[in-house]
């Protein structure tokens, strides 16, 4: 058995012992209440028993009350309920106990009072007086006997007294006759007790009586409940100055009168003692009863504490369990101590917790499934090249994948929960996207599909966009999912493919007839020029010359187309771009009104992996285009510069201070046959763009602030280890382009 068990057993044993003690005290009290002597003997035991019981119970109750007060102050669960129940117990226990105590005290006092009766007391007093009267007669007789003995003694010599006294004693029936001289000096004595060495000395008050009347008689108690009469007579001195003799006789009060007198005396005395002890007896009874009732009250109080504790303990356990569950601890299991309704409640609580736990596990599992599916969806969305944005009904971003951010050049993942319009204030592409969405939303609602055009630094970006409504939420509003794809490259590729097809067809359909046309024109000229007169000859000459010239022009145009359409494999090599720029620029010296090419080369601009022939063509096209734009104007200037862009790419810029580009055609300047010049094929910049894109670069044209135009070519930088710039150092734009 552990310490707790021992403690519990000891506590219960103490309580049982206290209750048994109290009960036994009550029984003893009941048994002894009719007998004061027995009560007197057991009184101390009763007090001791009750005192011990009261002290034990007080200790137990104090300990429990201390714990209760401590729990109450600490606001412990169940303390208030325990206090209220205890108060109810105490109230229920006090009322009957007080009533029982009051009536028990009444009963005891009346019971004790019933022992005494005025008539009995009076009777006993009368009996005592009667006894006294009867004994008075006897006393007078004994005094007379003594007087007669004294008369006979008077005049006898002391030496003869001893023999005379014996006869006189026997005659008088005395136990003892003694003759005293002055100062109670024994002169002679005679006694019936052979063991007595000395006669009974005269009492102090005898001399007073003798002096007053010469006689003394008294009734005295003797041993063994008997009485004796002491009678004395003084003899007159025979001569002046002679000694006064006193004759004392002791007479037994025997026979019936002595026994009756003793009985009366004992009864009277016993009654007086009882009457005297009545109040102390009642007080003692009251005290003992009070102690017994106090013990009962304390036992009831402890019982109240005990049962309250037992009743509240499961509730406390229940409260603690509830709090634990409120904290999220669903592993709590409450012990079922009883098999009553409270036990059923705890059992139900345990079952509820179990079900709750199972439900939570199921919910957690479901949530986990949802999370996994969400993660899978997020992974799928992340891998999608299609941008996906889910918007709540209030236009805030519920979810957006990485592709959407890349397409719109914004960190949409970080903006989840925020309105898309908020991001539009910072990101121009998003602003255009939102504006486009709003226009279509106003027109077509949530369900629509359309193509959007967004302006970027690198040109137009074409998006194919579709919107679908999400299910209606609890407020009745619906969000939407916007799926969009950047088809800029696709459109461009389709356009390039179309132009290539056109070029091939032109080369095939136009170039072939050109030679017969030219040959036919030259043949006509040779044959008929000399045969015609001067006027006709001049017309013929001019016409054939025009035909040949236009055929040549058409051939050049067809060749240019062929060149544009041709797409042989790149022969990449490490090219020093600065060196290539210098070489090409040497071919354009300052002459015929053309300015010299100004170079601003960044020595740090790295090498690029490029097809040197095509890069040379790019440079030629750009420089020639710039020179053509100047159109031999005064102060014209063409600048070729190289640098490292912020993204780490090599940037080649060919700029001029010419009239600049028409803003309306700026976006389409790299398309075939889009030109602002009066001469040229209109394919120069288209070829440049094609070649640059073949090198995984980008090209952008813009009007400079000081007037003129600038073409920016960005090429991936060739790294020392032979690789191109890694993806991390690239801009989102390039990564997206690669991605696409």
């Amino acid at each position, binding site marked *: 058995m552990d310490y707790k068990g021992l403690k519990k057993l000891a506590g219960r044993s103490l309580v049982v012992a206290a209750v048994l003690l109290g009960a036994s005290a009550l029984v003893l009290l009941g048994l002894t209440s009719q007998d*004061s002597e027995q009560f007197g003997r057991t*009184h101390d035991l009763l007090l001791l028993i009750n005192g011990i019981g009261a002290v034990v119970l007080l200790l137990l109750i104090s300990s429990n009350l201390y714990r209760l007060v401590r729990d109450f102050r600490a606001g412990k669960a169940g303390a208030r309920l325990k206090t209220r129940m205890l108060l109810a117990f105490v109230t229920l226990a006090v009322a009957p106990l007080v009533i029982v105590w009051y009536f028990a005290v009444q009963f005891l006092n009346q019971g004790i009072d019933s022992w005494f009766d005025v008539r009995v007391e009076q009777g006993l007093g009368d009996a005592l007086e009667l006894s006294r009267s009867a004994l008075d007669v006897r006393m007078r007789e004994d005094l007379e006997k003594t007087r007669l003995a004294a008369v006979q003694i008077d005049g006898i010599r002391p030496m003869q007294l001893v023999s005379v006294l014996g006869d006189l004693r026997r005659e008088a029936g005395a136990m003892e006759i003694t003759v005293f001289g002055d100062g109670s000096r024994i002169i002679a004595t005679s006694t019936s007790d052979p063991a007595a060495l000395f006669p009974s000395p005269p009492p*102090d008050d005898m001399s007073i009586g003798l002096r007053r009347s010469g006689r003394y008689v008294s009734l005295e*108690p003797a041993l063994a409940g008997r009485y004796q009469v002491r009678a004395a007579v003084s003899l007159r001195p025979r001569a002046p100055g002679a000694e006064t003799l006193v004759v004392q006789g002791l007479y037994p009060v025997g026979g019936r009168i002595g026994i009756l007198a003793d009985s009366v005396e004992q009864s009277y*005395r*016993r009654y007086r003692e009882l009457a005297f*002890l009545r109040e102390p007896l009642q*007080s003692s009874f*009251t005290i003992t009863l*009070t102690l017994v009732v106090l013990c009962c009250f304390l036992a009831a109080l402890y019982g109240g504490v005990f049962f309250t504790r037992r009743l509240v303990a499961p509730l406390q356990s229940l409260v603690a369990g509830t709090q634990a569950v409120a904290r999220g601890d669903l592993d709590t299991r409450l012990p079922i101590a009883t098999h009553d309704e409270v036990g059923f409640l705890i059992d139900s609580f345990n079952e509820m917790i179990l079900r709750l736990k199972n439900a939570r596990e199921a919910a957690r599992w479901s949530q986990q499934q949802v999370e996994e599916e969400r993660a899978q969806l997020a992974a799928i969305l992340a891998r999608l090249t299609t941008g996906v944005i889910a918007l709540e009904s209030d236009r805030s971003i519920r979810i957006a994948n990485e592709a959407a951010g890349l397409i719109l050049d914004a960190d949409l993942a970080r903006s989840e929960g925020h309105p898309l319009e908020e991001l539009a204030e910072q990101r121009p592409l998003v602003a255009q996207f939102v504006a486009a969405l709003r226009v279509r939303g106003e027109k077509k609602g949530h369900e629509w599909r359309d193509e959007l055009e967004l302006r970027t630094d690198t040109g137009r970006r074409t998006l194919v966009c579709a919107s679908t409504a999400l299910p209606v939420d609890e407020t009745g509003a619906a969000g939407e999912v916007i799926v969009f794809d950047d088809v800029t490259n696709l459109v461009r590729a389709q356009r390039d493919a179309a132009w290539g097809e056109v070029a091939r067809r032109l080369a095939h359909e136009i170039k072939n007839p050109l030679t017969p046309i030219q040959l036919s024109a030259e043949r006509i000229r040779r044959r008929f020029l000399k045969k015609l007169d001067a006027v006709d000859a001049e017309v013929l000459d001019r016409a054939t010359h025009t035909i040949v010239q236009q055929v040549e022009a058409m051939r050049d145009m067809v060749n240019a187309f062929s060149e544009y359409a041709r797409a042989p494999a790149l022969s990449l090599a490490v090219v020093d771009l600065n060196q290539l720029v210098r070489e090409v620029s040497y071919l354009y010296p300052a002459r015929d009104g053309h300015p010299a090419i100004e170079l601003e080369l960044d020595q740090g601009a790295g090498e690029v992996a490029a097809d040197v022939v095509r890069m040379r063509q790019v440079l030629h096209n750009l420089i020639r285009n710039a020179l053509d734009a100047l159109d031999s104007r005064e102060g014209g200037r063409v600048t070729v510069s190289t640098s490292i862009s912020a993204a780490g790419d090599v940037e080649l810029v060919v700029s001029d201070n010419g009239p600049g580009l028409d803003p309306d055609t700026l976006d389409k300047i790299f398309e075939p046959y889009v030109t602002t010049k009066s001469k040229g094929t209109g394919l120069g910049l288209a070829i440049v763009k094609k070649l640059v894109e073949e090198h995984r670069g980008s090209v952008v044209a813009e009007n400079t602030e000081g007037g003129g135009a600038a073409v920016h070519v960005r090429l991936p930088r060739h790294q020392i280890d032979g690789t191109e710039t890694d993806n991390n150092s690239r801009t989102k734009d390039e990564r997206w382009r690669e991605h696409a």
Partner: protein
Amino acid sequence: MHATHNGCFHQTARRIAPAWALLVLLGASVAWAADGSFQVRSAAARLTDNVYFVDARIDYELSDKALEALDNGVVLTIQMQIEVIRKRAFLPDALIAELQQDSTLSYEPLTQRYVVRNINSGLQASYATLFSALSSLGRVNGLPVIDAALLDAEATHRMRMRVVLDQDTLPGPLRLIAFWSSGFRLASDWYGWTIRD
């Protein structure tokens, strides 16, 4: 002798009140004004035939409560306690011998006399007045205490005596009252003296 209900209630209340008072004052020593006293006036030991005899004079004055009890038939027991102590230098004094003489004092209503009885010897004497009885009780003449041979001749010995009203022999109901009441708490101080040869 049946009281009315109201009277009974008052009577009960009158009896309960001291009981409650006693309970409330449980454990507290209440000092009532003592109207009785026991006092050993003088005492001395004399050596006769190698036996120490004690002569003493004791004043007995009973309290009103004790007198009331005596007159109502209660027997009072008076204990006379004598101790022989050997003095020691650095140790507590040693108790060599102790003697207790019990005497009862009672009142005989039939004879209207006070009876003094020595429990030890069984001798008894009756007196017409309480004064005579107490005077007789207060005279101790030649009470043999200890043989001189039992004492260490080299050591110093002391004797001391006192008289006490024995509460244990009082009737049971009275003992509870006697426990709280100074009227029955009658005892003299110890009266001591050095034994000289």
